[in-house]
């Protein structure tokens, strides 16, 4: 049993509980935050003069499974620039854009992150995802199950069978030990199986004759009626296509009226919104559509989004959006992996370098920050780089500096292609996040959006995940953004489940974190119907037997199920 721990004397930022930089102690016992620790055995972590927050919660990242592993396999030239030797406590590996599993855990923890969501888990690849998650130390994890192009989803949507769809979604979350419903380019990925795509919300999916609009709204409705902790996690159609902010807004309009599950207003989360907020007709005259999207989001409380912030570096793009990745390959001439998954999904991987002198890249960089700064409510816009798509997660401290310091933004902007001044509004934005807002967009709000009540805050009963950063908010000024970057790159302490795992930026312990998943009971009659359906189609169309499909308990040594109460007719 872990001993008790007191995080003493830091400036605590706990936005969920209204604590805004108060100097106070945080008490940890039995893996939880407690009111007070009694007894003399408690160890102390000295946080005086430092910032204390709950452990970071990354809502959208690519850390485990076939897609990131293809990226690793594809890029030996990326690995050799960032090698990680073994230490007394840690395994060796490689870093940069496609870090090995052990290094993924270490690096997130070193930045004070303690929970990270794998945002795209193809059901047939779920076992693989869990194998890798079990090799990612320290952090808590969860996988989001890809359902937007799944045969059964399309079939139930076509038949208008909402109860069948709900039963299927609930069963799939169990079978894959998934946490949320992920949708990638709805309909487009199924059409890509024939080498095609969809161009808008009302295009049709071959053979199924359903539209992206129907897929998104049906899954959103199913998601909310099932009472799942998180909303649908949506990668919109037309990603990377100039003018696509319209598609994004059209999608949001389509789901607007759907009644959210109890306890929240949101019914849709738009992922890496930067890639879906482009205005203009083509890549030559592309401009930012961020202000238009932000305006919509400000007016509609059912929407949350994450940034997918661009970093100027060589990275590896990887998405479940196969047709987009083929486009990107053709635009860049870079090597291209496509990976289709029978009946369910697909993926593509292409190396990409965001360049400062490239007008489109400069605009994309600005769009991410515009979204973060133009959406007023930090509870609805979250910091991500869509690791490693917009850039590797090791650059989070850089993003933090851009959010908190206009000078940091200006200094970068001066190095960029001039189009950033003319075709975005970033230069005119003066807003700078304070530590409280930062804590919101990196942990409090993400945990809330995920429905993880025990994460993202430091109230009594929360998980004992705490990060301490060596920066003094009482003397810090936005001009000192380099110090900020340094402090957030290497946490003074990261505490996971009450155990100090990082000290002075170095990993000192490597416990295995939990894997979260959602359990949702299906009424017996519906389940019987569903199983009949599954059995028939598995026999006819899959290449593995239904009995070998669900992920076995053996793959969840640290599984942490959460129960969702559905509304059934």
């Amino acid at each position, binding site marked *: 049993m872990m001993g008790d721990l007191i995080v003493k004397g830091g400036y605590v930022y706990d936005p969920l509980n209204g604590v805004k930089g108060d100097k106070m102690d945080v008490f940890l016992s039995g893996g939880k935050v407690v009111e007070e620790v009694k007894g003399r055995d408690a160890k102390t972590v000295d946080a005086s003069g430092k910032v204390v927050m709950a452990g970071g919660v990354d809502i959208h990242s690519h850390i485990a499974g076939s897609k990131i592993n293809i990226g690793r396999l594809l890029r030996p030239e990326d690995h050799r620039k960032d090698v990680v030797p073994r230490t007394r406590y840690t395994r060796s590996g490689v870093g940069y854009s496609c870090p090995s599993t052990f290094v993924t855990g270490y690096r997130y923890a070193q930045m004070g992150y303690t929970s990270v969501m794998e945002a795209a888990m193809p059901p047939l690849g779920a076992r693989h995802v869990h194998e890798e998650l079990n090799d990612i130390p320290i952090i808590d994890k969860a996988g989001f199950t890809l359902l937007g192009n799944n045969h059964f989803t399309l079939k139930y949507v076509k038949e208008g069978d909402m109860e069948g769809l709900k039963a299927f979604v609930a069963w799939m979350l169990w079978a894959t030990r998934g946490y949320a419903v992920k949708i990638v380019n709805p309909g487009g990925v199924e059409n890509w199986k024939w080498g095609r795509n969809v161009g808008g919300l009302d295009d049709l999916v071959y053979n199924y004759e359903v539209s992206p609009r129907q897929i998104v709204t049906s899954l959103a409705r199913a998601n909310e009626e099932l009472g799942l902790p998180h909303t649908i996690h949506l990668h919109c159609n037309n990603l990377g296509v100039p003018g696509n902010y319209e598609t994004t807004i059209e999608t949001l309009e389509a789901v607007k009226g759907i009644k959210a599950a109890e306890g929240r207003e949101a019914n849709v989360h738009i992922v890496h919104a930067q890639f879906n907020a482009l205005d203009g007709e083509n890549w030559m005259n592309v401009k930012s559509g961020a202000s238009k999207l932000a305006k919509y989001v400000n007016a509609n409380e059912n929407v949350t989004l994450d940034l997918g912030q661009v970093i100027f570096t060589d990275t590896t793009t990887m998405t479940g959006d196969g047709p987009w990745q083929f486009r990107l390959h053709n635009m860049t001439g870079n*090597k291209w992996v496509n990976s289709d998954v029978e009946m369910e999904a697909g993926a593509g991987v292409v190396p990409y370098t965001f360049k400062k002198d490239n007008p489109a890249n400069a605009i994309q960089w600005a769009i991410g920050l515009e979204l973060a700064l133009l959406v007023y409510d930090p509870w609805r816009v979250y910091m991500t780089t869509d690791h490693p798509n917009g850039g590797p997660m090791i650059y989070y401290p850089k993003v933090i500096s851009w959010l908190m310091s206009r000078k940091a933004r200006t200094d970068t902007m001066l190095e960029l292609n001039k189009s950033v001044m003319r075709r975005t509004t970033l230069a005119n934005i003066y807003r700078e996040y304070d530590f409280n807002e930062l804590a919101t967009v990196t942990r409090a709000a993400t945990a809330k959006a995920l429905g993880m009540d025990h994460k993202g805050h430091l109230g009594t009963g929360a998980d004992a995940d705490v990060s301490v950063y060596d920066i003094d908010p009482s003397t810090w000024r936005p001009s000192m953004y380099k110090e900020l970057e340094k402090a957030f790159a290497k946490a003074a302490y990261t505490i996971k489940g009450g155990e100090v795992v990082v000290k002075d930026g170095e990993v000192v312990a490597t416990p295995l974190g939990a894997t979260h998943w959602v359990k949702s009971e299906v009424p017996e009659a519906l389940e019987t119907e569903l199983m009949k359906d599954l059995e028939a189609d598995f026999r006819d169309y899959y290449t593995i037997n239904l009995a070998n499909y669900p992920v076995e308990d053996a793959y969840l040594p640290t599984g942490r199920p959460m129960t969702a109460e559905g509304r059934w007719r």
Partner: protein
Amino acid sequence: MKELWLTPTALPSIPVEAEVICPDVVAGRTLKDVSSLEVYVGNKTHILGEFFEVEGELAEQASEQMIVVDGTCQTVKYIGAKMTAGSVHVKGCAGMHAGSQMSGGEMLVEGNTRDWAGAEMSGGLLRIQDDSRNMTGGAYRGSPEGMTGGCIVVEGDAGVELGSFMRRGMIVVKGDVAPFCGVHMNGGEIFIMGQAARRLGAEAKGNGGFIACLGGVDEILPTYVHETTYKPTFMKLYMRQLRDVLGLEEAARFLETPFRRYVGDLAVGGNCEILVAEK
């Protein structure tokens, strides 16, 4: 130039990784310091002095430093790797990765080299007076760019995939080359004075690059087309340069030679040129 002499004593059978045999590393140090520089043998760390007698003089700047390796070192890897200036002279053979990723200075190997000599080189001159093995001036695994500058001269024969993924720079081989010379080439110049094996220029995008075959070709890929036979003026300039700057007297024989020009690789929509000297 100040000369540092390294004389191999007893080299182990497991290769020694000695990227410290590089002007940039030794310049500014004392002989004693140089002798205790770390080298690697399998999973063990040793010091340079265990395998080499260290004598001579050390310069302050890499550009003033010459390193003479007085003996054969076939199992010593990374000699001259990543050097930016100065010179390295190996009076025998050199192991894998000799002069790899060098960006300046001069390296001379009197004997042969193993695989990846001059791989991903970006500047300087690497001269190998005997044979070089595979991937000379090539790209490391996964890299879209091999050689991006500088010059490699191989006076013997060269192995497969010479200059793979080459972007810029020049490679001259006096002897024969094995298959897949200039594979995925995307710029740069390769001159082959001996016989060129088949599959040269495979999947080359071109980008201004060419492969000149002065001593004959086994076979041209079917995805290259013969366009014309002519006497390019630029070739005359190159031949003079080979003769006068690199001291390759044979080049003089080709000053007036007509060349058959092939363009490809059409499989990738490339415009790389293979220029074959008429006999």
